[in-house]
């Protein structure tokens, strides 16, 4: 039995359906990410799990117990908020122990728990300070401490790192991941940042318009996106999408591309052959990630899926470890990731290796994955 079960949950605000039947099962100790653009319903869903928002229909169960009608305090959860939500009039110690006090935990036990939490998060020297005397990162740590003190069945994180600067965000990300590995706690984590989603999650639920578009492991979501939206949302720089006709030649199916005046066919990978056959003569959208178009073969040996093509470079963007170069295929700008040393000047041509083994194809109408 899952530690968290969301079954067919619907949320309606008046006539507007914000969540359209969500189904998610999270196992004990799982780190589940809810990711999606603003307004996709991810925070609403989290609030519903917490009991801060009512459920229009469907069921939410925590640890096998249906919690639809339980108030937040009875759900055995703890939550970390984006704005930290520390009580400004209380010291760090009292912030952490407030929930314990309310629940009438004996004083000695409270002290013991606070000491334990402070040790785990390495913030013993901060205990007597007020929240206003803390930096953003320290506040976030206290907010996590407050959640830890309760030792709940389920932790909820609502974009906890969004208010931190970029460097601190990366540090805290590592810390949260470490914490999860140490506690083996079940965590539901809401973010709009796909990198956070990829790095932290055991599984990612990619949401849009009140629906879960895909629920899978980070690698699976990255390599095998369920539809065009998931493919474009996950990954930075984002996947390239090229609309092109499907052609069949000598028994193999491929997609026809043109670069400038030159036309060529790229064969679909083995798995895509069968699915794509029916599309011959029609247009599909091909998805290829920037790192699959590079200056040299990713594999040192001979890879039958790698095709070499020369293309005119229009824009060069160095990022440090890699340089992004822009070419045009079928009139669409396409980003490629090359080694900095190999990057030419804009306007020059260079030879690029296309790794076709991970090509994905989408139906241009439904935007669903074909293969």
């Amino acid at each position: 039995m899952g530690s968290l079960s969301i079954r067919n949950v619907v949320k309606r605000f008046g006539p507007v359906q914000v969540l359209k039947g969500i189904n998610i099962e999270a196992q004990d100790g799982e780190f589940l990410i809810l990711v999606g653009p603003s307004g996709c319903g991810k925070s609403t869903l989290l609030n519903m799990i917490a009991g801060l928002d009512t459920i229009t229909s469907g069921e939410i169960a925590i640890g096998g117990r249906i919690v639809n009608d339980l108030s937040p305090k009875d759900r055995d959860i703890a939550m970390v908020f984006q704005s930290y939500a520390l009580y400004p009039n209380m010291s760090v110690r009292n912030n952490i122990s407030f929930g314990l006090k309310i629940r009438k935990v004996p004083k000695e036990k409270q002290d013991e728990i606070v000491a334990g939490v402070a040790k785990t998060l390495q913030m013993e020297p901060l205990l007597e300070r007020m929240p206003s005397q803390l930096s953003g990162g320290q506040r976030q740590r206290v907010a996590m401490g407050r959640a830890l003190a309760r030792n709940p069945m389920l932790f909820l994180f609502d974009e906890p790192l969004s208010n931190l600067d970029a460097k601190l965000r990366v540090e805290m990300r590592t810390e949260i991941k470490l914490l999860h590995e140490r506690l083996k706690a079940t965590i539901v984590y809401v973010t709009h940042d796909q990198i956070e989603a990829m790095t932290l999650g055991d599984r990612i639920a990619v949401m849009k318009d009140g629906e879960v578009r895909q629920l899978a492991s980070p690698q699976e979501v990255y390599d095998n996106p369920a539809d065009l939206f998931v493919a474009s949302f996950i990954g930075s720089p984002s996947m390239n999408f090229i609309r092109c006709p499907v052609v069949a030649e000598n028994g193999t199916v491929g997609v026809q591309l043109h670069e400038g005046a030159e036309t060529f066919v790229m064969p679909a990978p083995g798995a895509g052959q069968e699915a794509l056959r029916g599309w011959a003569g029609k247009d599909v959208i091909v998805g290829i990630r920037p790192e699959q178009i590079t200056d040299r073969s990713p594999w040192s040996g001979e890879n039958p899926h790698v095709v070499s093509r020369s293309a005119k470079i229009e824009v060069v963007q160095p990022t440090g470890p890699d340089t992004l170069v822009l070419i045009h295929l079928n009139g669409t700008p396409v980003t490629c990731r090359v080694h900095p040393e190999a990057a030419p000047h804009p306007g020059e041509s260079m030879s690029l290796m296309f790794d076709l083994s991970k090509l994905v194809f989408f139906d241009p109408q439904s935007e669903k994955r074909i293969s």
Partner: protein
Amino acid sequence: MAEPYRTQTAGSQLIGRTVIYTLLILFALYYLMPLFVMVTTSLKTLDDIRGGNLVALPREISFDAWAKAWGAACTGVFCGGLKGNFMNSVNFVVPAVIISTLVGAFNGYVLTMWRFKGSDVLFTGLLIGCFIPFQVVLLPMAQTLGWLGIANSIPGLIFVHVVYGLAFTTLFFRNFYVTVPAELTKAARIDGAGFFTIFWRIILPLSPPIIVVCVIWQFTQIWNDFLFGVVFSSGQRQPITVALNNLVNTSTGVKEYNVDMAGAIIAALPTLFVYVVAGKYFLRGLTAGAVKG
């Protein structure tokens, strides 16, 4: 061509400062003039007032006028001074300020942290209350006080001022609490705190700046109120503002300017006191909503 950038010289800065301070001092003196006249007149004897001029200092300082205004001045047939009325004012102003502030805080808390269907409409309705002139509510209020059986009494005055002040206090607290992140309440709910616990332990401790604003505002309004006082009380139950008016307008015998002035200062002292004590918090509270600390 751009002109060369001119910097201020030390000399021109000094002149500027001098002009500013001279003007400020002049205005301060101008506004302090009435107070000066009041204080000096109240300390003069009647002969001194008749013989000297308005702004002259007293020839000898005498507190007789103060003693008379406090304990022996006559309004109509009653010659007990303003003492009783002063205590009347204290007796209804203090509870009215405390009750209206607390209820306002509570209203603000509910209207921001526990929104319900129609809470915005309710708030708008309350806002309209701020714009209703005193005179409009006189008759219905008299009727209501009669029904409640508290007409012409201290509790009656408390009731009137609490009801009339609620619109303002609710507005103050509501606008202060919208700057408090709603996540604070959510966190407290998850921590297990209930409706009243959150109010007492989390929200109210955040409120001193706005409480001070509210108390000053309400105290000044209620203490200085004349209309409700004159309409809803009579005789020995009148607040000091009404009694002062009666004292000054008593037209029998000699006009005792020194007693009038002493009485006026006595009537004004409590508000002055509140401003001096809480003044710095007042400014801080007024700007608290605008600039998040």
